[in-house]
C-alpha cells in the first residue's frame, strides 16, 4: 500500500519526467486508480487558431460522440468549470434538462460514476480545468476525495504549466520566494520542525506551514526535503 505522501511525490515525478500532457494524464490516472482524467486549457489570446487545448483519457468513441452532439455547449463541467474558482464535486453541478440528456448518454460510454474538477488560475490570469472521474460510488468517493483532493489541486497547476510549455514553448517563472519563505526553508535545512521554526521566528506553527507550503509549491517540489535540496542547489539558501 502506497502512502499518501508517496503518491503526491510520484505524481510530481511523473509531471517532471514527462513532457507529453496526454501521457501525464494516463500515468496520473493509473497512479491514483482513477477512471479518467481530463485537462482543458482555457482559450488564450496567443492561440491564433482558437483551437481548444484538451487532453483526456476518455475513450475515442465518447470524444467523437461529444463533438458530434455539440456537448461542449451543454456539458455542465465545461460550462461551469471556467466560471468557478473553487474546486468542485460534480454532484454540486446544476443539471438542466439538456445536460441531463448528455449525462445519460455519457453513462453509456462509461466515463465514470463520480467526478471532481479543479479550476486553475495563474499569475497571468490564464485559466485551465483539470478533472478526474472515478468508478467509486458515493461513500468511497467521499473518502477518496478527503484524502487526495489536495493532491489534485497541486497536480492541476503542474499540468497547466506543462501545457503552456507544450503550447507556447515558454511559461512565466514562478513568483520569487519571499524572505519568510526563505527563512523557514533555511531552518528546515538545519533540521528544525514546524514547531521549532515557529518558536525561533515568533510565528504560529500554522503560519510556518503556510510559508513552507508556498515555498515548496513555488519550487515545484512534492516534498519539503526536495524543496530544501532544490533551494540549496539554486543557492537560495546555503547547505
Amino acid at each position, binding site marked *: 500500500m502506497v502512502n499518501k505522501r508517496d503518491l503526491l511525490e510520484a505524481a510530481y515525478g511523473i509531471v517532471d519526467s514527462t513532457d507529453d500532457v496526454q501521457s501525464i494524464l494516463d500515468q496520473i490516472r493509473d497512479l491514483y486508480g482513477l477512471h479518467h482524467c481530463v485537462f482543458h486549457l482555457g482559450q488564450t489570446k496567443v492561440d491564433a487558431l482558437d483551437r481548444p487545448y484538451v487532453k483526456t483519457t476518455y475513450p475515442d468513441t465518447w470524444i467523437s460522440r461529444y463533438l458530434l452532439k455539440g456537448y461542449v455547449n451543454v456539458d455542465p463541467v465545461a460550462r461551469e468549470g471556467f*466560471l468557478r*474558482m473553487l474546486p468542485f464535486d460534480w454532484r454540486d453541478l446544476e443539471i438542466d434538462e439538456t445536460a441531463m440528456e448528455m*449525462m445519460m448518454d455519457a*453513462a453509456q460510454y462509461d466515463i*465514470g460514476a463520480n467526478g471532481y474538477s479543479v479550476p486553475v*488560475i495563474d499569475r497571468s490570469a490564464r485559466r485551465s480545468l483539470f478533472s478526474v472521474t472515478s468508478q467509486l460510488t458515493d461513500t468511497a468517493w467521499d473518502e477518496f476525495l478527503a484524502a487526495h483532493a489536495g493532491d489534485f489541486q497541486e497536480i492541476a497547476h503542474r499540468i497547466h504549466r506543462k501545457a503552456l510549455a507544450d503550447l507556447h514553448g515558454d511559461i512565466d517563472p514562478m513568483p520569487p520566494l519571499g524572505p519568510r519563505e526563505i527563512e523557514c526553508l533555511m531552518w528546515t535545512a538545519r533540521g528544525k520542525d514546524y514547531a521549532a521554526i515557529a518558536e525561533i521566528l515568533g510565528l504560529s506553527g*500554522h*503560519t510556518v506551514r503556510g510559508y513552507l507550503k508556498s515555498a515548496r509549491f513555488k519550487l515545484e517540489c512534492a516534498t519539503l526535503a526536495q524543496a530544501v535540496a532544490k533551494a540549496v542547489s539554486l543557492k537560495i539558501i546555503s547547505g
Partner: protein
Amino acid sequence: MFFLVQATDYNKHRTLLDQMFRLRKRVFFDELGWDVPVDGDVERDGYDDLKPAYLLWTDEDQTTLYGSLRLLPTTGPTLLNDVFRSTYPTDIDLCHPVIWEGTRMCVDTDEIAHGLPDVAPQDAMAMMLVALGECALEHGIHTLVSNYEPHMKRIYNRAGAPLIEIGKADGYGRRPVCCGLFEVSRTTIDGMRDKTGMAQLYVKNSARRSRQPVKGGAWMIGSPAPAGTAWTNAI
C-alpha cells in the same frame, strides 16, 4: 444567511452584487478613504474581473445584503501582492492553491440595524469572520491572507480568529492597512464557535437553493442520486 456566489451564479444574484459594489464604495471610499477605483456609486477593481468567489451575508430571502467579502486563490493575480509590494516586497506573496486571499470585507450597519436588530454592530464583523472560517474549511482552504485596518484586530480577537500580522502599508487610506494570515483548521473554527457562540452560519450551495427540487433527480451517471446533492443541502 451566508453563502458563496461564484461566477456561475453572478446573474442570478445580480442585484445582491450591485448592492455589494455600492456598499464597498460607501465603506472603502467614503468612510475609510482608501485609494480604490470608484465609478459613480460603485467600487469595482480589476480583481473583480477575475471571477472571484464572493461570500455574501443576506436576509433569508436573498434580497437584502448585510455584508460581503471577495475570495481569490494566491496562485493567480492577488491584490495584496500588488498593494503591499512597495512596503513589504515579497513577504506576503504567498502562492499555493489552498492559500486564498480575502479582500474588501465589509458589512452594512444600517441594513443590519434594520433587518437584524438583535445583532450588535461589533458582532456583525465577528459573524462575517466565523462564516468566512466555516466557508474556507468547507472548501479545503488552509490559510486566508487578508487586509484590514489596525482596529480590526480587536474584531478578529472578539471572533477568536487567530490572526498573524505579516505586513503593514501606509498611503492606501487615512490609516495604515495591515496584512495578516488567518489560519483555517477544524481547531481554530471550533475555537471561534466557542468564543462567539455562533456556529454553522455558512451554508454550502445556498446560492443555488430553489424552492422546488430539481426535476428528475440530481445525478445520473452510473449512480443513483446521492443524498445531499445541491438542492437538498440548501434547505
